[in-house]
Structure formats: structure tokens, C-alpha cells
């Protein structure tokens, strides 16, 4: 069975075996957990106490700096959308979500799907900061045979729930997860992050309807509303703005926030703000390229790679922000 596959693969890529149905996902991950334990100095801290707003800001800032460096080193990435989503990821992993790097498959974990999978690098860095993967592994991003490829692979990287990359897949999968929790009366929550351009995919609206019909108040959609898509502004392409009334008319509870205000994000995602019987959409107003002035709100930086000079500039700005707690204007 699959013998032609296995014959080939075992010679070349032992990790690819995980793709085969003969093996449980968890079996593949156990290996990684071992590695993680050695490298992971965050686990104990983060899992034990609530972080302060200042700490959260510093983590977001550190993720941004690591991201900038990693994009430069790899010569690849989607830096604009990474910078815009990092505060949201920080809030989720370091304040909102109940996850445990020691038990990444704990059935009662909260689930996050980064549906805008092209910004995987930001997710990898968040996962490494949170202790799911070794921090030094970030340097393998985009390298041949690395498990940290351009889009996230749930069979290789602990903490990732489903494979994304094609836009418009995450919300349907999130609906399924939230349904599963409802079926077993479990308290865990499901979070999905989409891009705003991504909301042009019809598959998302199928899921929007279903989530409302199924009254999935354990599902939260966060739209990273940076007003830019790949080649142009949403307004020039397919203008979904304003987003809030569209979700609202489909029966969702909608909240609009500043997607770079960590306090606002944490509040909007806290379980207390859930409206019973309704899925929640957080329209997070963000800036693509946030934190690095020359990238901010500039469509050219969707997946452009900065040169050494630009990295230096960006790093200086991010370091200044780390000191002051506020981004440069």
C-alpha cells in the first residue's frame, strides 16, 4: 500500500511520512516536543501568569524585529501582511488563547487558524516565542527541506491546526472546529484570522452564513483590515469596505477595533465579550507594514524583500518603538 510512495520517500525525506495516513499526526509531533522542551524557556513563564500590556507590546515588537530580519535573510516573506497581523497574533498567543506548547494536541486547546497563510513567518515566530518550536529554527524559513515553508504545514509544525495558503480556506475549517466543540459541549474556542482582500473569496461567505445559522458563539473571526491586497488597494480592486455592516447583516456580532492596540485586541477577544448564540467578527483596522514607516500602507510591500539599508532603517524604527512603547509616527 502506497508502497511506491514510501519506497521513494524513506530514502529522501523521513518527515514526509507524516503525510501518510498510516501514521498519526501526534506520532510525528512527539519528536518535536522533545526538541521543544530543550529550547523552550518561555513555556513556564507564559503558561503560569497573565502578561502585562507592556510585556505584550515588547513581544510584538520582538516578533516584528525577528520577522524583518528573517525576511531579509530568507529573501522571502510577505512582510506587509506580517507586520499588520503581528499584534493580533501576540494577543492571541500571549493573552487570549488557552494553548500549551507541551501538549500541542490537547483536545481542549483553543484553535487558531491563520487563514492568510502567506504570513506564516509571523506565525512561526509567534510559535517560537511561545515555545512551540525552537527559536533558532526561524533561520530555516524558506530553506530547502525546511518544515517552515512559505505556508504553514500542520503535519510538521506543532501549534498549527490546518494547512492554509490558498485564501478562503480557514473560515470553513473554523466553522467545523467550532461545531465539533459544540457537539461535545466543550469550552474551547476557535479563532480564524483572514485578510481583508481574502474576504473576496466566496468560500468565506459560505462559512459566514453557516456560522450564523449554527449559532457558533465559540467562533471568532478576526479580519486583518489593512485595506491593501496583493496588487492594489481593496478600494481599487473589489471594495469590501465597510466590512462591519456586511458581517452584521449576515447575523454576526461585529466589533471594530484598532488592530494595533493590544489592549483593544485582548478585550475584543476575551470570552466575556461574546454575544450568546452569535459568532463574533472583529474587524481589526490595521496598517500593512505597520511599525516600519516606509512600508506602512504601501502596497509595494506586500511581498517585497527589503535590502540591507532598508532593514537597518526598519530595525532602528522598531528599536525606538521598543524603547518608547510607541511606533514612530
Amino acid at each position: 500500500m502506497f508502497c511506491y510512495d514510501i519506497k521513494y520517500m524513506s530514502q529522501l525525506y523521513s518527515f514526509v511520512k507524516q503525510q501518510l495516513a498510516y501514521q498519526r499526526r501526534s506520532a510525528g509531533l512527539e519528536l518535536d516536543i522533545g526538541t521543544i522542551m530543550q529550547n523552550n524557556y518561555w513555556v513556564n513563564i507564559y503558561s503560569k501568569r497573565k502578561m502585562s500590556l507592556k510585556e505584550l507590546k515588547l513581544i510584538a515588537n520582538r516578533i516584528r524585529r525577528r520577522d524583518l530580519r528573517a525576511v531579509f535573510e530568507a529573501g522571502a516573506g510577505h512582510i506587509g501582511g506580517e507586520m499588520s497581523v503581528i499584534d493580533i497574533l501576540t494577543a492571541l498567543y500571549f493573552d487570549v488563547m488557552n494553548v500549551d506548547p507541551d501538549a500541542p494536541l490537547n483536545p481542549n486547546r483553543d484553535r487558531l487558524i491563520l487563514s492568510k497563510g502567506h504570513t506564516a513567518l509571523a506565525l512561526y515566530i509567534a510559535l517560537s516565542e511561545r515555545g512551540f518550536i525552537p527559536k533558532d529554527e526561524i533561520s530555516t524559513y524558506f530553506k530547502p527541506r525546511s518544515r517552515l515553508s512559505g505556508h504553514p504545514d500542520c503535519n510538521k509544525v506543532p501549534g498549527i491546526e490546518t494547512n492554509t495558503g490558498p485564501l478562503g480556506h480557514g473560515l470553513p475549517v473554523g466553522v467545523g472546529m467550532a461545531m465539533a466543540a459544540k457537539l461535545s459541549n466543550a469550552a474551547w474556542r476557535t479563532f480564524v484570522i483572514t485578510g481583508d482582500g481574502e474576504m473576496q473569496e466566496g468560500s468565506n461567505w459560505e462559512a459566514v452564513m453557516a456560522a450564523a445559522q449554527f449559532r457558533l458563539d465559540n467562533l471568532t473571526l478576526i479580519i486583518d483590515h489593512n485595506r491593501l491586497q496583493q496588487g492594489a488597494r481593496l478600494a481599487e480592486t473589489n471594495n469590501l469596505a465597510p466590512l462591519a455592516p456586511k458581517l452584521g447583516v449576515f447575523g454576526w456580532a461585529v466589533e471594530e477595533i484598532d488592530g494595533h492596540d493590544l489592549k483593544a485586541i485582548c478585550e475584543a477577544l476575551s470570552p466575556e465579550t461574546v454575544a450568546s448564540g452569535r459568532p463574533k467578527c472583529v474587524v481589526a483596522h490595521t496598517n500593512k507594514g505597520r511599525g516600519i514607516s516606509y512600508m506602512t500602507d504601501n502596497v509595494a510591500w506586500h511581498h517585497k524583500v527589503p535590502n540591507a539599508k532598508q532593514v537597518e532603517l526598519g530595525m532602528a524604527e522598531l528599536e525606538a518603538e521598543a524603547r518608547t512603547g510607541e511606533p514612530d509616527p
Partner: protein
Amino acid sequence: MNFRTNAGELHDCRDAFTSTLEAMAAQNTNIVVVCSDSVGSSKLGGFRERWPERLINVGIAEQNLVGVGAGLANGGTLPFVCAASCFLTGRALEQIKADIAYSNANVKLCGISSGMAYGELGPTHHSTEDFAWIRAIPNMAVVAPADRIETTAATEWAAAYDGPVFLRLSRVGVPDLLPEGHRFELGKANMLRDGTDLTIIANGTVTHRAVHAAEDLAAKGIEARVLNMATVRPIDEDAIAEAACDTGAIVTCEEHTIHGGLGGAVAEVVVESAPVPVKRLGVPGIFAPTGSANFLLDEFGMSPAGIAESAIELLKKKA
């Protein structure tokens, strides 16, 4: 031992599928069904009555259907995703690739009314490309049972198997072929009849036609082996190579286009293991005209007589 067809009694395999599903669901509370306004066509009324909360109907939205299936599996349930095969595969193919196969979600995709079961509804409703579409995707098991008994066996197997499955089912009535109690093994062909002159490889609704053809051929003194190749991916390379070596010629029959389906999979193995002449029967690369599945199968040369004729023609090419 040759399996004989009993053309007297024809069964709609959906009944075997849903009764097996219900029997399993009574034992295994993790089993859920996901459908897309396809309760009736998937014969899920009974399931819905017994476990309304475990029957998740997403409406007419096949992309969401498959995505929801993946999410349900992640959340610890065992989802059977049921919809007309043409829409399930054609409309949600990228979801099948990314959310199910590549993510290795333990989801059972059940393509109902596959092939030309919706013959008169026209080519938009013919699912005669699904073998080619799904078997191109890594990590998918592709299974098309031949009768009521194998449908039950394959459905039970699918629930036990830990990985993505595409079960290709039909509503077209077929007689019993396999013995009661038959157990399904992935990637393993069943020899329904042995023979030395050539081999007929078939699956799904055309298998009994192949057996009939072999009986007709036997009456003419030609001994055809018949392989029921329910698994299209991973294909049973050994059985095909053996058939090629032992019998020297192969006819393939499928309710599917001849471009890239079962015949294509067989051809791929034959040329790499033991090159012998093969004749592929199926939908000949056109959008089929209006007509019932059985009418169209006959038209496309897959009546028992048509298959036998192709076999005799092929024998002339045998080295």
C-alpha cells in the same frame, strides 16, 4: 472460484452505505455526517431522524462542506462528508487537496451518485472525471465499491482507517458479486474469476458487467480473469503486473472518462511492470448525451456483449 452474478436482484448501494453508517454511528458517537442540502440524495433521512444534532447540513455550499469536514475532524469527531460526487469533487477540489489531503484530516468524503447515475441530468451532473481528479492528489485513498456487500465493507473500513478517503458511491442498481461478510482491504484487487487469455479490470457499477462479459467469453472458449479494482489509489500494482504477465492482455472498464481514470492508472502500471496490450473502456473523452447510466454504459461499449467484443478485438493484438 468464480463469482457469478445474479442479475435478478439489483441493489442501490446507498442503502448499504447508510445502513452501515447508522450501525457504526450507534456504536461510535464520534461519527458525524456533513452534507450540503443532500440529505435525500444521500439517503440520510434515517440518520437525521436518529441523530439530528450529528447531521450537519451546511446548505448548498460545497467548499464550506469540505472545510467544515476538516474542522470537525480536527475537533475530534469522525466526519463522513456526503454530497453528489460531481459537486463534492469539482466544486471543492482545492479544499480536498489542502484541507483534507495535505492537512491529513481524517475525513471520509463520500461521493454519492457518481459516474453517470444522473445520466439524464446531463454532463454537469456526470461525475466522470473524479477518479482522475482525486487520484492525482497525494495522500488520498480512492475507493469505488462494486456492490452492496463491498459498499458495506468499504464503509466499515473507511471508519477504521486513519486518513483521508474518497468513497465513490452510486445509486445505479447492481447485483451482488462479493460473498457476504467480505472484508475490504485498501489497495488490494479481488479476483472475481480466474482466466488465462486476458484480464478484465473493472470497479464500481460496471464490475458486474465485466463478470457477465467473462461468462459470455467463456461460452466462446475464452477464459478471462476478472479483477475488481475497487481501490484506484493506491492501485494494486502487483495484481496488475501479475495479470499482465499471466494473461498478456487487459481490458479496463469504468464509469468514467478514459483519460486518467482507472484505465489510466492501470496503463501506468502496465508500462512500468509488464507492457502488454490494454484496451480502455469508459466515456470516450466527450460530454455524454442524455440518457440513463445503463443506457450510456451500453452506448459506450460497456454492455457485457460490448466488453466481450472489445476483449476479442484485443486478443488479436496479443503477442
